[in-house]
């Protein structure tokens, strides 16, 4: 591992231009960053240790939203969400990701900022535009079974690996950010990530030195929620395809719907086309097919990942059928699921 200089952030007010210096990295849980540093995929010259940053370690309930501190661990958040009406989707997504050991260390902001698990990104002997801009994308013409079909470019087809982010996209999360000059802003998570285009190394809209301080989750009416993840083994594997969904049916028609797709996008995928196509309709197989076909019109396939459209189709059918059934069985779950 390359040597680095270590500094510590104790309070948000200590954030300054040095913490955002070029080739400096914040380290929260470190479960992804340390791995990447061992492999020399990441070689920061400075680490800013957030272990003593106590300002953002809590979940605070407000009238209209929950504020999840950046340093809240995935375990804390999963436990909280599992007992919080309207956040069942988030709990399911978190618990389907990683292992207890990793969730105990991984933080909310760190989860959002984790890097892709593309094999070629990890292999420093292979060309990768995300790791080394301008070197090319090995995945496009090689084994790409785990790679994306939405939001791709000929420069990069790596998927975003987070389950939590897929659920948060579906739930309309926003990020609270603070810049080294103290300037604060909020940004919808749906607008946070960048598709690769010609600059795959730019993965999000964080400004230099900017820090995620919290995730703002709007309070949801209960609705029926489901996160379903399809993967190569039943636990501790990244999604080949995942679907996050919340549904409210009224008079046998979709009155509220939110979705997120994981394992298929270069960013956690918010399938707005599918959602719009299904609103107000009956959830027939034909309507679901038509709505997904409209989304898939923009998809690109690269050989080994050609199985993803049918897998996504089957997964979406399963999830929406289950939620519709749940709505019929538990009418108390009626209500505005998603209001933004």
């Amino acid at each position, binding site marked *: 591992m390359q040597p680095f200089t270590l500094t510590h952030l104790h309070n948000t007010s200590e954030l300054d231009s040095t913490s955002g210096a070029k080739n400096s990295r914040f380290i929260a849980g470190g479960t992804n960053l*340390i791995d990447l540093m061992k492999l020399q995929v990441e070689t920061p010259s400075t680490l800013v240790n957030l272990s003593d940053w106590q300002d953002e370690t809590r979940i605070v309930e407000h009238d209209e939203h929950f504020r999840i501190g950046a340093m809240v661990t995935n375990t804390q958040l999963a436990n909280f969400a599992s007992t919080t009406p309207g956040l069942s989707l988030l709990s399911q997504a978190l618990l389907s990701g990683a292992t207890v050991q990793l969730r105990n*260390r991984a933080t909310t902001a760190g989860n959002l900022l984790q890097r892709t698990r593309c094999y070629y990104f990890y292999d420093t002997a292979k060309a990768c535009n995300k790791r080394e801009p301008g070197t090319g994308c090995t995945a496009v013409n090689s084994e790409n079974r785990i790679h994306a079909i939405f939001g791709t470019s000929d420069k990069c087809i790596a998927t975003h690996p987070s389950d939590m982010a897929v659920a948060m996209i579906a739930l309309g999360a926003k990020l609270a950010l603070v810049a080294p000059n103290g300037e604060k802003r909020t940004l919808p998570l749906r607008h946070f990530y960048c598709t690769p285009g010609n600059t795959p190394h730019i993965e999000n809209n964080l400004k230099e030195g900017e820090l995620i301080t919290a995730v703002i989750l709007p309070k949801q009416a209960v609705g029926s929620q489901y996160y379903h993840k399809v993967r190569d083994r039943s636990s501790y594997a990244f999604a080949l395809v995942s679907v996050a969904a919340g549904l409210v049916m009224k008079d046998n028609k979709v009155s509220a719907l939110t979705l997120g797709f994981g394992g298929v996008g270069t960013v956690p995928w918010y399938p707005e086309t599918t959602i719009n196509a299904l609103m107000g309709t009956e959830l027939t197989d034909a309507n679901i097919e038509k709505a997904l076909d409209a989304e898939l019109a923009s998809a690109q396939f690269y050989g080994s990942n050609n199985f993803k459209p049918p897998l996504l189709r089957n997964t979406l059918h399963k999830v929406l059928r289950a939620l519709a059934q749940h709505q019929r069985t538990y009418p108390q779950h009626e209500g505005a699921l998603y209001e933004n």
Partner: protein
Amino acid sequence: MSIDTGPTVTINGTPYALPTDPRTTLLDFLHQNLALFGTKKGCDHGQCGACTVLVDDERINACLVFAFQLTGKSITTIEGIAKNGELHPLQRAFVNRDAFQCGYCTSGQICSSVALQKELADNAPSAVTFSEDYSPREDISERMSGNLCRCGAYPNIVDAIEDVIALEPQ
């Protein structure tokens, strides 16, 4: 911002000064500085769980944390699980159930299952907790999925854990 100044960490009840090289992971610190070799290095990338230890009673992978991140924390390794010369009930159950073959993953498996006992007492959910076809064995497997056993001793590992930790059918 402040520069590092002589922090300590407590391991199995004894405080130690942290290593001067910030690149030192907890796992390497245990091996290289303290000669505590019970915690195993398997993959060194957080994929196998052989290095599982407890930090303030929560399980983590010792290979994926720098020692400096644990300033002021209390760490229990496999060497600290037995008390007063008596094996922990889970250690005894692993012996009774022959829940290992080569034994390389066992210290991680035991530390993990000790933490699992507390997680269940705290009603922490797993991915299968609310499953319609819930089974306690499946729940144990899910909660232990961060600990691989290349010998495939999984059925006996689950047996050993079931002997000590009673999960109620939902």
